[in-house]
């Protein structure tokens, strides 16, 4: 039997001919009917270009320069846009990466869904057809959702609406490009459950593009690992993840965060004490409701919770960006003084001033505290860059010349500059690839051993927190529902919410043993 989708030697290039290496370089891939195939790779590995090429959605700057793609036995490479439009939405569906931008903000869900249904051949979709399309993707009350605008929906629901639109025509193949990387772990689980369920029910094949090996391990029948435009390993999920042959697959597997094991640390000397913190934003939204925790000297406390649980508000209160409504934040028994608590933000692309050189960025806290002369500051910047594993010449460059991981290192160097007692890390690795993530976590551990500061590590990803923090606190709806040594909480979670979080970690049981 011919496979549903067969790709042979597909090569895609960007820019003028003959320059640079291709983004997709001679890729072979097969998707059988009803099968879920995961393509795993870092950003820049060419996996998104591959997904776009297979959906006929390549930008004008890209060209397919070689290879054969057959879908349902017919060649689809080199199809014209008109022919693609007949195929796309009906036989091949595409779910994009970012549900935040993929829906038209000025159109209701009804209008966008109706448009999708019209394209699949229902000229005037009735109310029940629209509701059925949403019901199929597990939306509990479709009628109420139809007249909402995208901004009134959470990320998970937006992604479900997109999925509903994609699946409305009962396509034979669903191409999902990082469908959950913009969502937190819990929502990711529900969305992926849904994809799997719908695929099994309708016999739809799924090509799942992801950077997360755990996701691939949980969901896929077969896995292809991509790096630098090539597929370096391909096979059944169990075989690829259980006994990987390619060195790159092994590196990916090694980089997955491993929970800290070993005995619970002895209680140390309390450094940062937060008592009964409460923050009500103007308008009455209660972000944090009576949170209390203690951070010991030279230790790491992980704060885990879904988005909207109030963990970022705690980060902002501790760093002094936001005044608490009530409650106290004491460092060594006194209010926090300037420079002693520093901050590393989630998005390294936004947290560095694009017009400043890296040297000036790292020196900023020193300038603010008027520490040392200009020459001393320059000397200190070079030492800090060395500390975070960056070469000294980076000091003269602009952030735009650096990769995401390098930028996050710069942000860490800046936080280190005034020798703080506490560094608040707000989702420090969630914008980074698995391999870079592991490097940054290792760097943070090394810096803590060397300089002895404490970390408050905030993340939605329990796996990351468990890999870096000796103690953790779990937040839900502004309250801390559980806290304790990481190993204890993981072994015997007391709160039901913690158990849900644990279950949502992709690839969990496989990694644990």
């Amino acid at each position: 039997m011919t496979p549903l989708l067969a790709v042979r030697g597909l090569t895609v290039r960007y820019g003028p001919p003959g320059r640079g290496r291709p983004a997709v370089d001679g890729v072979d891939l097969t998707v059988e009917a009803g099968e879920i195939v995961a393509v795993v790779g870092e950003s820049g590995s060419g996996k998104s270009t591959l997904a776009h090429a297979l959906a006929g959605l390549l930008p004008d700057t890209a060209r397919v320069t070689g290879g054969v793609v057959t879908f349902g036995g017919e060649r689809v490479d080199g199809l014209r846009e008109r022919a693609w439009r007949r195929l796309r939405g009906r036989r091949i569906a595409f779910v994009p990466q970012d549900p935040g931008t993929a829906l038209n903000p000025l159109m209701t869900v009804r209008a966008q869904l109706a448009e999708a249904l019209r394209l699949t051949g229902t000229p005037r979709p009735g109310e029940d057809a629209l509701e059925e399309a949403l019901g199929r993707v597990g939306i509990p009350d479709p009628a109420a959702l139809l007249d909402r605008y995208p901004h009134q929906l959470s990320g998970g629901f937006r992604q479900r609406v997109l999925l509903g639109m994609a699946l409305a025509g009962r396509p034979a193949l669903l191409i999902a490009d990082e469908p959950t990387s913009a969502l937190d772990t819990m929502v990711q689980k529900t969305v992926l459950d849904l994809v799997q369920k719908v695929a099994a029910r309708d016999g739809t094949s799924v090509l799942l593009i992801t950077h997360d090996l755990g996701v691939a391990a949980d969901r896929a029948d077969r896995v292809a690992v991509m790096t630098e435009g090539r597929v370096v390993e391909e096979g059944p999920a169990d075989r690829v993840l259980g006994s990987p042959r390619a060195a790159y697959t092994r590196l990916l597997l090694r980089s997955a965060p491993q929970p800290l094991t070993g005995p619970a640390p002895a209680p140390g000397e309390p450094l940062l004490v937060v008592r009964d913190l409460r923050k009500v934003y103007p308008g009455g939204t209660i972000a944090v409701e009576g949170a209390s925790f203690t951070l010991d000297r030279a230790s790491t406390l992980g704060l885990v919770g879904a988005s909207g649980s109030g963990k970022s508000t705690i980060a902002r209160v501790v760093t002094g960006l936001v005044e608490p409504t009530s409650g106290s934040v004491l460092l060594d028994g006194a209010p926090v003084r300037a420079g002693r608590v520093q901050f590393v933000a989630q998005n390294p692309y936004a947290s560095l001033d694009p017009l400043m050189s890296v040297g000036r960025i790292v020196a900023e806290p020193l300038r603010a505290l008027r520490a040392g002369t200009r020459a001393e500051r320059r000397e200190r910047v070079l030492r800090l860059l060395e500390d975070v594993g960056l070469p000294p010449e980076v000091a003269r460059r602009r952030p735009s010349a650096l990769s995401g991981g390098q930028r996050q290192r710069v942000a860490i160097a800046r936080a280190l500059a005034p020798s703080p007692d506490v560094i608040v890390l707000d989702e420090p690795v969630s914008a980074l690839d698995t391999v870079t993530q592991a490097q940054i976590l290792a760097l943070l551990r090394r810096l803590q051993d060397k300089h002895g500061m404490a970390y408050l590590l905030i993340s939605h990803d329990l796996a990351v927190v468990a890999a870096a923090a000796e103690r953790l606190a779990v937040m839900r709806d502004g309250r801390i529902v559980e806290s304790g040594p990481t190993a204890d909480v993981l072994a015997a979670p007391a709160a039901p919410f913690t158990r849900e979080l644990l279950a949502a970690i992709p690839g969990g049981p496989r990694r644990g043993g």
Partner: protein
Amino acid sequence: MTFMRRLGVVPSALVLLAASAAALAPGLLSPADPLRGDLTQRLLPPGTAHPFGTDELGRDVFTRVVHGSAPSLQAAVIAVGVAVLAGSAIGLVAGTARGRLDGLVMRAVEVLLAVPSFLLILVVVAVLGPGTREVALAVGVSAAAVFSRVMRAEVVRVRGSGYVEAAAVCGTGRVTVLLTHVLPNAAGPVAALATLELGNAVLTVAAVSFLGFGAPPPAPEWGSLVAAGRPFLASAWWLTTVPGLVVAAVALAVNHLGHVLRTRSETR
């Protein structure tokens, strides 16, 4: 393609170069006196001796156009300078303060925008009296409102960015954050708008001077040259057409170069 596009810049650059040279060193291009005429040489059409012809008093039009570029261009540059400085300052204050002050300032700016700009210019000139500098100020004031709105929007955007937050955690003072982070990052669109506005200002200054509010005669200015040639439209077309074409060429050249610079900075 890129080569052709680069080639297209050359005429604009030449026009602008010639205009700047005329403004900075008029004597170099045309050593004659723009005010002194030779009555035996009245209303001569363009020829070898007088490339742009002569006017009703026998003055060389080329000389007058060359000597008129300094006040005309100066007025345009001053106008844009006034607009950028005043507009940015207003926008910076409004965007930083937010709240009631922001509302108050921006509503005032909207009132300014609601008045037709030419009317506003005439009112300011009527209050200040005629003269090149007065016209420049009037044009600048009328353009400031747009700059203040762009600046405010940029300030609001940049203030919410991660690096401004990071600077606050570093302990950097508010004024320093404003000067080192907010202003430089907000300046891009304002600079782009300024290049666009310069071409516009050349036109507006010429228009106001055409109406007789610029430098008093006999001093040459592009706009007043066109006005002075009007009675001879039927018999001596060059008196109005040549200065008019010069204004159009300079405005086009400035706009074109501004556009090229803008697209280049955006794609980078």
